[in-house]
């Protein structure tokens, strides 16, 4: 399955990078897919971590202007890669209404 993975790079533009709330939005979205999603901070040359780990994602230290890579492997990998890349490019919808489950 390794050769079947989908890889994509995307610039992080929302002001707080992948911190706190945006990181939580990203991890929640990644966790919704069956595929294994690995993410790395291209700008700092970090190691890959699971995109389903809030601690891993926070630990990448992704600030505004950094570029991240996504590597997705699994059944729904195309959908996952596209959805996550769009989410990051769109600023990770920090407006509270756009955060799934945050309005309970």
């Amino acid at each position, binding site marked *: 399955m390794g050769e079947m993975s989908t890889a994509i790079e995307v610039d992080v533009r929302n*002001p707080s990078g992948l*911190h*706190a709330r945006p990181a939580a939005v990203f991890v929640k979205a990644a966790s919704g897919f069956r595929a294994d999603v690995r993410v790395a901070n291209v700008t700092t040359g970090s190691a890959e*971590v*699971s995109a389903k780990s*809030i*601690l891993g994602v926070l*630990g990448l230290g992704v600030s505004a202007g950094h570029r991240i890579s996504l590597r997705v492997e699994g059944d729904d990998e195309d959908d996952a890669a596209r959805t996550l890349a769009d989410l990051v490019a769109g600023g990770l919808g920090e*407006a509270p209404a756009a955060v799934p489950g945050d309005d309970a």
Partner: protein
Amino acid sequence: MELRGLPAAPGVAIGPAWRYRHAAGRGIPLPDVRAAADRASEELLALADRVRAIGRHDEAAIFDAQAMMAVDPMLLDEAAARVAAIGPADPDALAAAVEAVARAAAERLASLPDEILAARAADVRDVGSRIARIVAGREIALPDRPSIAIADDLPPSVTAELPPGSLLGVALEGGSPVSHAAILARGLGIPAVVAIHGLVAALDAAEAAAEAAGEDGPPQPLLLGLDGEAGTLSVSPSRDALARLEARREQRRHAGAAARELRGRPGMTADGQAVPLLANIGRPEDAPRALDAGAEGVGLFRTEFLFIGRSDAPSEDEQVAAYAAALRAFGGRPVVIRLADIGGDKALPYLHLPPEDNPFLGVRGLRLCYEDRGLIRTQVRAIARAGAEADAVPHLMAPMVSTHEDVVMLREIVADALASLDAEGVARAARLVVGIMVEVPSAALCAAELATDVDFFSIGSNDLTQYVLAMDRTNARLAAVADALHPAVLRAIRATVDGADGRGIPVAVCGELAGDPLGAAVLVGLGVDELSMDAGALDEVRMLLSRVTTAELRDLAATALRARTAAEVRAAASALLARPAGVPAD
């Protein structure tokens, strides 16, 4: 022994000390790390709901994130690897392993160059402690009777979790009045004093001494008296000191009941001078809480929530919806919408602001328009349209106004925005009430000149204090001296009131000082017309105003203006407000 710190939440508490530490006994261990993590996550989600219900969205976001951390696959995998060699028979070793894994994760975050991320390290450690407690069947030694919490720092999750009624007050060695523990204490309505240097060592010594003195029976917790306005903690107070504290507490209790009865009545001094009391809100959803507390309107609607944390500017339509929602919620009562207060410290990708060495002295607030008026012009258009949609007269105010040229520019932007709506045939409010924040010393000193072109002033006491005293309000080491009741700040406020008087425009205060009972008294004495504050402070300020006359407040203000120190001002204000409620002194 009396220890001194910073007042962080008002009120008086008398009760036994409760030290934040593990209980001696233990409950049933849960030697399954995965199950313990799930339980921790559920507890944290419940806490998020609880604080969201009292309007604390920031803390709710922390607990939501912590709930996610608790079941983090990386954390759980590392923990699983470490506990594999430990049998379920040794829950303490399991707990220690879990805590170590969380500590290591926290260290990784703490080592990141980004301060915001580094600050999350404490949240991770707190999550680790929670899972470890569940695994080991240990609990925080909950107070067995209503107590005053003593700690170096209290994680927000612990503060929010203590059963209602068990916490009489909070005294911390660390923290600041703007720390989460302090904000939560205010939200929960319990007194708090923070930044008490030497607190933990002093309590340790006092406990040891008490234990050595009384040899019979189990050691009794120390008796404490906490004064959330004076910022003092009395350890084993003398009989006299105790009597004084009890009298004040009793008086506050009556005052609290009486204050609730005053809800729904407008703010007014004992001699009948109206002082409208308004609420500060951060988003339209805060309206119900403000209305419940009897707010007579909104003196500060912060609009930054629309602008931060996104990759492009909010659309005009999106803004219209938010402003109209707030205007409608307050049906006809004034709502002051503040134009976005954004600067180099909040880099918004769509504004392309270069980083600045001194963002608090940089291009922020209305100064954004020096380079590009587009963002603010759109906001003014949205406010005018929202007025039409909600059938209300919106008030707008500009932050960070420092010169007459700024006011002229604001007027141009407003005129231009309205003209553009008219040219497009878009419905708008017939009129906008246009005011400015007075938070920069130059604006206070030139208030008379600025007053000629605006409809009202609103003093931002937090920033005014920072700029008058040249003390960064985010610097914890200056928190003890950066007091908004410093005579220099009060003289700047007086200059603002004098400048406004010449033109007959009203002056409001919308900083923390307005919701501090001592501050509110001094401000009204200085001639401030309206006070806007967190909704939780309205009852108390309404009550205190109803008990004093304008003449008394004017005398207090005169004393305050002559004072040499903030402490002298606080003493004078306390003396006036400490008078027994409703009855003449005997």
